[in-house]
């Protein structure tokens, strides 16, 4: 499986990759994007099976990236990994077509729970 991780923080991308491994989801091919615009392009060129995206990013944020993906007909599985885990954000994420929202700070268990539904 190919997973695209979109986050403007290199530190957080590494933490997400580490947590995936700790959650028992190591061994997947990982592609990294620094913002939503780059993620949008990489979904086209790399055809990942899952996108794990931050919400707040420069250039294009995660929710706009998801909306653009869905508008273009992409049905790629998409989950947010964001510090904003309020009900309001979860509802916005779900109505835009996200499969899940993992709130930072997170645990490997939270990743496993979220990913089990889509992997």
């Amino acid at each position, binding site marked *: 499986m190919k997973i695209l991780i979109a986050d*403007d*923080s*290199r*530190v*957080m991308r*590494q*933490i997400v990759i*580490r947590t995936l491994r700790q959650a028992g989801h190591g061994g997947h091919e990982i592609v990294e994007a620094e913002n939503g615009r780059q993620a949008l392009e990489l979904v086209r060129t790399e055809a990942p099976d899952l996108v794990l995206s931050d919400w*707040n*990013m*420069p250039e294009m944020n995660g929710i706009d990236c998801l909306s653009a993906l869905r508008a273009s007909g992409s049905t790629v599985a998409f989950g947010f990994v*964001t*510090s*904003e*885990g*309020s009900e*309001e954000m979860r509802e916005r994420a779900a109505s835009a077509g996200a499969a899940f929202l993992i*709130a*930072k*700070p*997170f*645990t490997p268990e939270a990743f496993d729970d979220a990913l089990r539904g889509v992997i």
Partner: protein
Amino acid sequence: MTTAVHEGPGSEDVLAVAEDVWMALLGEDGMLVPRAVPTGTPFDTAAWSAATTISGGWQGVVTVELAEALARRLTVRMLALPADQTATDSDVADAVGELVNMVGGNVKSLMPGPSTLSLPAVAAGRAAFARDAALACRVDLSWLDAPVRVSVHVPLGGPR
């Protein structure tokens, strides 16, 4: 710990958020210890600071200030760098920015919405505030004997 009169999150809530973030990033080594600091005392010098702004249903600025050595140690731990490697300034800026993003995002979830969280602004130095910002909450902590401060400022006269 100090709580001012302005409406904002309580010190206990901010402390709980900071503890959750540290614990999630560092596991059992992430234990933060409250530190008694008199009101009005500037943060220890030689620090890194990061700020994020919440605007909308509630308005405020969340800052995290860290001693230089602590910021570097935390970055090394977040990046899981080998013991003989040191973090670059760019790594530290990234890590400290992510820290305030997490703390700020969780504070935002505690306050009335809907609101938006800005991208973090990171500086090597103490956080400075405009005259029209009032301290709503300040939590002084230490991690591995080095100081950490989390503050929440609101527009003067209370949240708009």
